């Protein structure tokens, strides 16, 4: 059986600030929503702490649909973090 993992994508200034466009992560223990994932990432190191700092507006999509802090996460999900959109 393959290990439970999340595919995480970062866009725009989040990607540049992290120096990373995507990563795969073993689903950490206790992480079962977008909110708990953000809290876990924040504790990882200063770069994550900075992009998810209070006052920073970061949007999220789970499996290509807009999501909020309470959106549940499961192994195999694609989670994307990005700033408010500015197309058009």
């Amino acid at each position: 059986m393959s290990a439970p993992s999340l595919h995480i994508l970062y866009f725009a200034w989040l990607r540049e600030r992290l120096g990373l466009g995507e990563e795969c992560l073993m689903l950490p223990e206790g992480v079962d929503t977008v909110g708990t994932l953000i809290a876990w990432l924040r504790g990882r190191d200063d770069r994550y702490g900075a992009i998810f700092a209070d006052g920073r507006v970061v949007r999220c999509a789970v499996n290509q649909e807009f999501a909020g802090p309470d959106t549940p996460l499961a192994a195999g999900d694609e989670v994307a973090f990005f700033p408010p959109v500015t197309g058009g």
Partner: protein
Amino acid sequence: MARVVVQEAAFDLGAEFAALTAGRRDIGGIGAFVGTVRELSGGQRLEAMTLEHYPAMTAASLSHIAAEAERRWDLLGCTLIHRIGRLEPGAPIVLVLAAAAHRDAALAATGFLIDWLKTRAPFWKKECFADGDAHWVEARAEDDAAAARWSEPG
């Protein structure tokens, strides 16, 4: 069915108009919006703009926005084209066409489509200036307010 395209290349407004209306005798009006790159940004002269998007989500998001317009108005066709990559001042960025039997629906749907696209489709603009300065465009409260005009009561 809406025509939804994300592309680097420029679009041809005339060709898109012709494709939308070819062989149709039921259309009474077509609303059109073309967004272009404005040179002046916050008093600075823009050298170019780079548009990034979330490929796996973009087309679905645009189709969803078009479907919502089709649910709200009796459209006889609509076209949404958004460019990505590097674009210089004056270049077209986005095309919205909405066809209906009457102008009210065509014009309203055109406004709705661009307002929702600006606040819901996963695109991000980065502005690059001649002096080497570059920054990501921040979302504007005015765009949220424009999109909120279309929220349905209840």
